[in-house]
């Protein structure tokens, strides 16, 4: 067992967990933040994407102990009170999701992109987002949503 103390969505957390707890399970079960989804369990699909110390990572292949002392942001950490993050609003306005299962991961990956590069080209968006899989949308609306959020263009 280990006691870990990460910052999660701006809050200092402290929990005792088994050494082998995966970060996705820590987030979903220990913290009750079920916005993060688990898809493939091998780090390939991107559904479990969260931001750790400014980097997008696959939480299903990361140990929770590796986040000790770090900054973790999940989908629940984006909205401020009642105000959605521009990315969340853009995904709504531009139809960037259908079933929604990949969407938290898409938005977290997109947030990491815009934090790294505020005005990405379409090619840069595609290269960055390439690892976040979606079975529903065909990706076009996801790319448009990110472009809209990046360029400050939100639907009327």
């Amino acid at each position, binding site marked *: 067992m280990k006691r870990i103390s990460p910052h999660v969505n701006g809050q200092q957390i402290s929990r005792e967990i088994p*050494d082998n707890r995966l970060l996705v399970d820590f987030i979903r079960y220990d913290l009750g933040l079920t916005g993060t989804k688990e898809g493939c369990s*091998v780090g390939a699909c991107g559904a479990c994407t969260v931001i750790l110390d400014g980097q997008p990572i*696959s939480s299903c292949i990361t140990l929770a102990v590796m986040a000790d002392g770090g900054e973790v942001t999940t989908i629940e950490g984006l909205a401020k009170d009642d105000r959605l993050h521009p990315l969340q609003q853009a995904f709504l306005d531009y139809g960037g999701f259908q079933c929604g299962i990949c969407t938290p991961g898409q938005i977290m990956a997109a947030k990491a992109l815009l934090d790294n590069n505020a005005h990405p080209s379409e090619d840069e968006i595609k290269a960055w987002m390439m690892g976040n899989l979606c079975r529903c949308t065909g990706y076009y609306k996801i790319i448009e949503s990110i472009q809209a959020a990046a360029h400050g263009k939100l639907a009327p």
Partner: protein
Amino acid sequence: MISFTYVEPRDVGEVLETLARHGDEAKLIAGGTGLINLMKQNLVQPAYLVGLHRIRGLDSIKSASGLAIGAFCTLRKIESTTVVDSGFSLLAETCRQVATIRIRSMATIGGALAHADPYQDTPPALMVLDAMVRLRSQKGTREVPVSELFTGYYETVIQPDELVTEVFIPEQPSGSGSVFIKFLPQTHDDYATVAVAARVTLRNERIGDARVALGAAASTPLRAKVVEEALRGQAPTPDVLRDAAALVASVVDPIPDFRGSANYKRDMAVVFVRRALAQAVMRARAGGA
């Protein structure tokens, strides 16, 4: 997930002490992008996981007659560091093609070498750049050329009590052009069906020297010396490149999988070595990269 004890040494000295104490009951974990999946499949079951993410000072990139890269440097850091792009662009170009941004944000250059998965991209690129790794244990320090590091499927010369601390890349010969080509007929985030790293050094319009290495073409990353020898001293004509590339068929030993049969991968190795040589020559003529 199997049970284990996670140990967090505070510096390199404590890492080496922990490794010496536990021997092959312990596995090092940096980004964990390779290891965690092996553990999820019960293929690797260490009693102790030695976590490196607290260790400071192992993730720098320094240029001084070549490049010294800390073993704990992530692929993401390497691909986005300017000094790598100018003079060692093959490494940046290779890192950018590994898996996805999430994997590259955690996977480290030292971990990639220690993991020794023959499908990985960075080992053949490092072979072609004449890179060396520094290994440290309580018994001392040694340097091993990356071309001599791999002994078998997921196996290296690295002993259980050793830690990869740095990767050194020497200054590249002037007149060189290099390229990394990853054949990805399926998805963009996949391992290669075959991957080729190549460097050609031109001297007076002849091939002064060459390096060719392949990933996903055998049970280890593979240095194709037979191709290199066929190129030295020759004029870089399409015929010469084609004949040299054909020789790679005799040294690859591809693992058949859903990406293709061994015969298919062998044929593709020949095709992609030829293409890589042509591109490397073009880049050498254009003033190097």
